[in-house]
């Protein structure tokens, strides 16, 4: 089995600040994803990457950047944090079948 590690677990930022969330996986999966989950709601896809250095926009990419530096890591940047950014950000990976998730980064913007 493998594990997906997201850092930090909790992130507090100021409005307008640039914030970066990190994700590492040791499944050796090709595809990695960033999802956003707002309180009491389902998950929405922000960015995904099918291989190292690849980036694809999801349904919610505006206001975000991403970087797939190597196969095992995928980072997400909130370019200018807004108060409505408060949500849980979930990283995931897959090998073209089942998708596995990290434990999430909870973002609060003050």
């Amino acid at each position, binding site marked *: 089995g493998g594990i997906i590690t997201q850092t930090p677990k909790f992130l507090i930022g100021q409005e307008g600040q640039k914030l970066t969330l990190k994700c590492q996986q040791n499944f050796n999966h090709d595809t990695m994803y960033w999802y956003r989950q707002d309180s009491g709601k389902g*998950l929405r896809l922000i960015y995904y990457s099918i291989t190292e250095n690849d980036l694809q926009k999801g349904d919610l990419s505006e206001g975000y950047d991403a970087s797939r530096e190597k196969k095992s890591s995928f980072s997400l940047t909130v370019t200018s944090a807004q108060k409505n950014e408060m949500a849980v950000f979930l990283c995931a990976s*897959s090998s073209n079948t*089942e998708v596995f*998730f990290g434990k999430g980064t909870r973002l609060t913007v003050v």
Partner: protein
Amino acid sequence: GDQVKQSPSALSLQEGTNSALRCNFSIATTTVQWFLQNPRGSLMNLFYLVPGTKENGRLKSTFNSKESYSTLHIRDAQLEDSGTYFCAAERPSSSFSKLVFGQGTSLSVVP
């Protein structure tokens, strides 16, 4: 409208009883995944389904691709089954999994 619609949105079960959760799809769906999100927010994989049925302990899930729905049956509900259940539809793609999530069913199992 919702591409993946889950019902019910919330459910309270007495310990030891049975129930079924449902997902209806209005998009082409090749596979379905079911997850349980615990109160701390972690998403645990329950089932990965091609059309057909799988069973794991007290849980059983079916994906009917012709009628575009999936069900998750919980038998003999336990307190630790509480949490939010999500289904996710995989959209047809040649190279990777791209999931569309339902809004979730919040399950509370009470003594």
